[in-house]
């Protein structure tokens, strides 16, 4: 019995260790606080360990990210007060990203460093940020994101498009502030 438990923990640890950077990174980008991210990630690991018998064996990373996202939505967001910017913009028109691209992608992206990306990400409202994080950083499919965030696929598509547009805008503003882009720069 004891050996069985030990084997189970070993199996869980082997899989969890591989995906932990994604779990912790997502937690950090959601909470924007290392301390809270540590609590969130640890709680997610404990929940996952307790439910490991029920894991269907298909995609461990998606399953873990689903747990951490659900935990964040259920627990941490309840603490937040005030209106959620994300929900206010949910039904708005999706602005094409290229239309605002007086700023050339190459210049913008080549000059942006990691810390600036994190700052720009933090400016995107949480629902949209979550969709971008799970899709573009963690490589989850629409269906997996829909399961993780408990919204329909249509909402995921819409949030993702809007989130990317907001992120690009934030990156552009950052670049303009820093001075390596000038207003009116062409796409050539």
């Amino acid at each position, binding site marked *: 019995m004891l050996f069985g*438990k030990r084997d189970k923990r070993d199996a869980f640890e082997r899989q969890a260790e591989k995906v*932990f*950077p994604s779990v912790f990174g997502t937690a950090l980008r959601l909470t924007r606080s290392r301390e809270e991210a*540590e609590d969130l990630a640890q709680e997610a690991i*404990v929940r996952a360990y307790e439910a490991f018998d029920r894991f269907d064996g298909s995609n461990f990373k998606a399953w873990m990210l689903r747990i951490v996202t659900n935990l964040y939505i259920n627990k941490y967001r309840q603490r937040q007060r005030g209106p959620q910017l994300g929900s206010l913009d949910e039904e708005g028109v999706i602005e094409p990203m*290229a239309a605002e691209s007086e700023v050339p*992608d190459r210049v913008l992206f080549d000059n942006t460093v990691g810390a600036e990306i994190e700052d720009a990400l933090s400016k995107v409202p949480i629902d949209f940020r979550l969709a971008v994080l799970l899709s573009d950083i963690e490589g989850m499919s629409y269906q997996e994101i829909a399961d993780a965030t408990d919204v329909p696929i249509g909402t995921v598509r819409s949030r993702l*498009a809007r989130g990317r547009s907001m992120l690009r805008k934030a990156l552009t503003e950052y670049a303009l502030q820093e001075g390596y882009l000038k207003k009116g720069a062409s796409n050539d």
Partner: protein
Amino acid sequence: MIDPLQLHAYVDGELTAEEKVTLDAEILNDQAAQQELASIQSLKVFLAEKVPSVECKSEWKDCVGRLKEIDKTRHVEGIVGRYAWALCGAFFCMIVVGGVARRGAGDRVQSDDLAQMALSFRGSNRPAVVPGEDKALQQLLHNAAISVAPGNIRVLSAARGTLNDRPAVKLCLRDAKGDMALMMIQAQMGFEDLQSMEGQPPMYAGKLGDLNCVAWVEEGRSFVLIGERDATGLHEVASRIKIQ
């Protein structure tokens, strides 16, 4: 006009083969869509490549420690859970066996209990009998159903009351060697930590605080004789006290 959501789905590989072919054809004739598609792709590649990885080795160690603790806790809970009924059963059996043994042996008292009982002796409101008031004394002794062998022992006083909520009589006695107290309790008691002595009825000797005592049971009553002399001396006096 191409739906921008379709372009995002195209980049994310979320279109069916059929949808993809259709969209490819539409994009060919739409420069704005081509630009938009390129922009989405650039951002996606940019995020995948440039978002920094997070250092989290110490956090992972903490998680592993937590998992170990969980396993330990579960292990202990498992043992307690598995044997809870057995532990409860054993405890219950101990209580039952103890109760039966106590019932079989009657009241058992420790010497400390006896001392406590002697100290907490609650006399009746009647005044203690003064020597010489033979009638009252005889009546009291009669009620106590004992008599002290005449001779060298004098009854200084007697009082009735309760000991541990049982009817009891206390006699203060005196002989040539000094004073003693005789407690008679209307109940058969066991004397837990007193030493057994030879004689009939069986007697027990021990200490009540600083004083020696001998105790015995006779005719369903318990007697305790306390005095400032050794057990043999008390035993000798006790053997001279006869129940009427």
